[in-house]
């Protein structure tokens, strides 16, 4: 698995690079390390068929960015990330799978 760590500072530049490469966003997966940090993995297939994962690791209560303007395919999975981990992603409402009146909060979160 080809994982490329990215930072908050170069996040936009890395995503713009993927847009220029005509990369296809397959999925975004979240992973709570359980120690207050969150990994957000952006899984891409690039034109020659290779799979690349860009990994942003950040404090779970820090802000995350939406990529839906660059990759419309992210529209559902970003909502799910916010809903399942209770992260703060600007402009994403975080309502997809759980009932609107549910008292379940961020069921896949491990960090306190």
């Amino acid at each position, binding site marked *: *698995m080809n994982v490329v760590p990215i930072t908050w500072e170069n996040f936009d530049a890395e995503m713009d690079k993927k847009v220029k490469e005509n990369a296809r966003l*397959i999925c975004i997966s979240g*992973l709570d390390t359980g120690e207050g940090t969150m990994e957000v993995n952006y899984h891409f297939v690039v034109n020659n068929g290779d*799979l690349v994962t860009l990994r942003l690791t950040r404090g779970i209560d820090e802000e995350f960015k939406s990529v839906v303007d660059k990759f*419309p395919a992210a*529209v*559902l999975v970003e909502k799910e990330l916010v809903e399942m981990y209770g992260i703060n992603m600007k402009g994403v409402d975080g309502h997809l799978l759980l009932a609107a009146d549910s008292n379940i909060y961020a*069921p896949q979160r491990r960090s306190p």
Partner: protein
Amino acid sequence: MKVVNIIPFGPQHPVLPEPIHLDMQTEGEIVTDVKVVVGYIHRGIEKGLENDYEKNMFLAEKICGICSGVHTSTYSTVIESIMGVEVPQRAELIRAIILELERLHSHLLIIGLVGDAIGYENFFMQTWRDREIVMNLLGTLTGNRVHYGINKVGGVRRDLTDERIALIKKALAELRPKVDDIADIVYHDYTLKKRGRGVGVLKKSDAIALGIVGPNARASGVNYDIRSTGYGAYKDLHFKPILGEAGDCHERTVVRVKELYQSMELIEEALSLLKPGEIAVRPKGFPKGEAVARHEAPRGELFYYARGIGKKEMYRVKVRTPTYANIPGIPPLVKGMQIADVPYIVVSLDPCIACTER
């Protein structure tokens, strides 16, 4: 004065086997905007997959009641990749045979539902009757018609004996003329063509931008079929994706019909390559590390990401199903169409909501 109405479609609707809801904003009979709502059958399966990596196979299989086999094969592949397990060739071929049988019954199901959606009831019944040949065969080969329980980490649970191989050949010989009949109707029937041509057109550029997968993308000319990457036994099988051009409701059905023939040919080729040998190897230790796997489900690319930390229980398993990728394609197809076209457009995308919500 312009009057705008909100018309609900679903979650319960005669053409929907599973619940999905669309809030359609309309002006007269024309849909001007739509909001898609899911979440009626979410089961928390990804959370449940933080469990014993071998027992997870049974839970992954329950994600879908149609394409259960591809979920277990993709889950197996991602775990085998983490554990460095090399699956025997015979097992890979058996997996491919089961997956192509699954594609056959899944495509026959949705081709029939397309008939149902436009009121072509006898076509619906004919297609589902013919589908029973495949369902019964899967029941004989694996012991189950729906959740086959065929895959395990390291290979498959059941071998294909000579007797079972003969049954597959007999079933395909029985099915082929019936598929000829279905193809003849789909290609030439005036009603089907008139109802589906030019309706719900997905442009190639939109399909690429929205990340649409499977026959829906291929019907718009997008050359994207994970079998082309040569995973598992597909590296030894002759395979070329079937592409359409028009991208409308009818074209999506035409592509699926052509894929029926392709699946039968792939099964025959896989049977010809079967050689005596092991059907499974026993993995050692527990999964430690991470991997991704992609397989071509009947509805398109199925993606798994998994991480193990050297324990029996998996730390994380992420599942991105084909319909999850296809749902963003609904609004652009529905906007500007008549209300009466919406059920047909939605069904033509072959949505699987149980998969989507997990």
